[in-house]
């Protein structure tokens, strides 16, 4: 036990002192913060720089219909399209909207010219304005007052509330749960791969440098393997905690500088792929923002972070043991491919299926994959923000624990033979034989 601790300490200290660890520790939060901040910056950038747009409307349907919304200046002109195109090139206008006389009597075509990429929100604004106008005209033609339609439209304010066993009520907000779940499962996926392959590479290094022979005469192979696995687990946890702290502080500092009001919007823009029109239609009101706040407050962060740590550790331990077995069996990293494939398939499968599971987090596919230890770390993280019955959680966790005990036992058998074998790459049949030594 004492020796496992010594090995663990060495693994931890040498890794934490590495430049790559330090760089990743600071780069990670920057990337994550960027993920949240960049949409905010982009949103503010869009407000800079007014656009002058020339409109040539041969149908005369849309004159005055494009409002001077959002720093878009529409100029209704009656020049030839060709001369206007030249003006666009010269920079006199940023864009030219050309609505040709329709072949039928309803205009359904328009062209936008620009010497630069046309922003998505501008083209969608032009599109919606035009189709609204055409709709209104059509309605009027059939004798319906558009006002009637307008007043008939009702916006439903749907609040989803989950009642738990104790009768407590929690407001839920699916988009946030989806984002949180997917984020958690992707993070676990990467953590398992990154730190699992560190275990593998560490073992290959010990093998090729032949230090393993020296160490194995003082400690049991199992102790060496466990020391390494646990040491790297601590490295992973350290990195994760530093990321949380650093991301939080970067985000906090940013919010102080840019002012708080943008906050919730940035959260929703960055966190989920919410309505693109969000930035164009500012009336996507404050009530939604407040609702998001309410829901964010309702999210059970202790449970989510707690289960993240559990599933990261459990999943990592399960896979790290397998990675260790692979590392012990080969002499160099190139030879690992053949064995990596079957080990990574369940993980990748879990991640891919997670994207479907978010739509039905209580379905039977979700249930089984979050119970089976090989996929549960990735899949369960998707389900947790939606709330998982404690019974299922307990079964899943218990199975994960027995799962990694099993893989550790299994890996230890291959490991103790593998680390002392040099030369040719073993086949699966040989690995099977090592199991029985």
């Amino acid at each position, binding site marked *: 036990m004492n*020796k496992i601790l*010594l*090995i663990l300490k*060495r693994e931890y200290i*040498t890794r934490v002192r590495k430049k790559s660890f330090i760089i990743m520790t600071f780069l990670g939060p920057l990337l994550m913060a960027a993920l949240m901040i960049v949409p905010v910056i982009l949103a503010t950038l869009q407000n800079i720089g007014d656009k002058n747009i020339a409109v040539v409307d041969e149908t005369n349907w849309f004159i005055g219909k494009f409002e001077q919304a959002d720093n878009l200046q529409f100029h209704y002109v009656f020049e030839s399209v060709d001369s206007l195109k030249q003006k666009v090139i010269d920079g006199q206008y940023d864009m030219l909207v050309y609505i040709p006389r329709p072949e039928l009597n309803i205009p359904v075509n328009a062209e936008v010219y620009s010497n630069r990429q046309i922003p998505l929100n501008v083209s969608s604004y032009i599109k919606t304005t035009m189709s609204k106008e055409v709709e209104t005209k059509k309605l009027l033609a059939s004798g319906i007052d558009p006002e009637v339609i307008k007043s008939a439209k009702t916006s439903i304010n749907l609040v989803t509330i989950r009642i738990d066993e104790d009768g407590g009520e929690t407001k839920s907000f699916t988009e946030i749960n989806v984002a949180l779940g997917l984020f958690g499962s992707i993070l676990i996926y990467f953590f398992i791969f990154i730190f699992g392959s560190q275990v593998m590479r560490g073992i290959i*290094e*010990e093998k*090729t*440098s*032949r*230090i393993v*022979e*020296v*160490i*194995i*005469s*003082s*400690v*049991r*192979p199992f102790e060496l393997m466990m020391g390494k696995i646990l040491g790297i687990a601590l490295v992973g946890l350290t990195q994760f905690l530093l990321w949380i702290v650093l991301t939080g502080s970067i985000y906090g500092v940013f919010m102080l500088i840019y002012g708080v009001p943008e906050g919730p919007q940035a959260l929703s823009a960055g966190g989920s792929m919410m309505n693109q029109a969000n930035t164009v239609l500012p009336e996507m009101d404050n009530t939604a923002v407040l609702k998001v706040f309410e829901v964010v407050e309702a999210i059970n962060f202790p449970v989510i972070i707690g289960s993240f740590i559990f599933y990261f550790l459990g999943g990592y331990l399960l896979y790290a043991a397998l990675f260790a077995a692979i590392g012990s069996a080969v002499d160099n990293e190139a030879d690992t491919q053949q064995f990596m494939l079957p080990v990574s398939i369940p993980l990748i499968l879990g991640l891919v299926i997670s994207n479907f599971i978010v739509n039905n987090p209580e379905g039977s596919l979700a249930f089984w994959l979050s119970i089976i230890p090989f996929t549960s770390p990735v899949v369960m993280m998707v389900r947790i923000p939606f709330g998982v019955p404690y019974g299922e959680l307990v079964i899943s966790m218990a199975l994960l624990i027995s799962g990694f005990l099993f893989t550790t036992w299994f890996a230890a058998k291959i490991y103790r033979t593998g680390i*002392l074998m*040099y030369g040719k790459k073993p086949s699966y049949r*040989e690995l099977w*034989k090592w199991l029985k030594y």
Partner: protein
Amino acid sequence: MQAYLSIQEVTKRYANHLALDDVSIEIPQNKIFGLLGPNGAGKTSLIRIINQITAPDSGKVLIKGQALQADHITRIGYLPEERGLYKKMKVGEQAIYLAQLKGLSKHEAKTKLKDWFERFDILNWWDRKVEELSKGMQQKIQFVVTVLHKPELLIFDEPFSGFDPINVNLLKAEILKLREQGATIIFSTHNMASVEELCDQIALINQGKKILEGEVNALKIANRNYTYNCEIHYPVNGWNTILESLPVELLNVKSELSKIKLHIKTASSLSSNELLKMMLPLGEVASFQELLPSMNDIFIQKVGKPAKPAGDE
């Protein structure tokens, strides 16, 4: 006298070959014991069993009469043939780590290491990374780490590979010193010259079987082939006729101005004293020496002959 290490009827089988076949060896305390054998003979398998890296399929290994236990490991220092260090780690740090794994406290390890490093004149490497050192330098560090915790039993597998002659001598001196201090040493090598120089006893393993064991000198005598070199100054007239009448086989006779050099083989029934007596009438016997086989000869003779695949019993 009870042997320090007693290997009793050890058999180890790997998937498709017998690495050790009923091997029994007694290694006496405070001696340098040569474990010899060609590549793949089973030496490393045996050493791994002594180090408890693997377990024998059958048979026992006793240290001072006790079956191997986990805590015996700290009494053994093992320098494997395939050895290395963490390349990215600093020398001092790494040496302390390896010493700690052998059960030394950090403080103890540090003091002892500084001592050894000073003796080997490598103290200035302390803070350098291993990858900056030459292979020979790394070997020195490994040697120090192996002996640092003052083990009762030292196992050196090809300790001199990668060393220049000066360092080989330094190492030999250290190994002899360790024996003086009471250590029992197992020395596994192909280098027969160093075996003659260092070893008190040897065992020869071939194809998983022990084929020879004993004291180096006794083995040489047991394997003598009764050849002698004899130099005679001022030979008497007619030495030729006398020589030819003797019951010996003349392998080579070289006559120079006032001396003759003889290379003779006799029958095993003739003792060296009797042979010497026969030489006396030839002239002044300036030198007379029996040519005992070198360990190299014995090795080749024993290993070379039954080099047929196993199963020839």
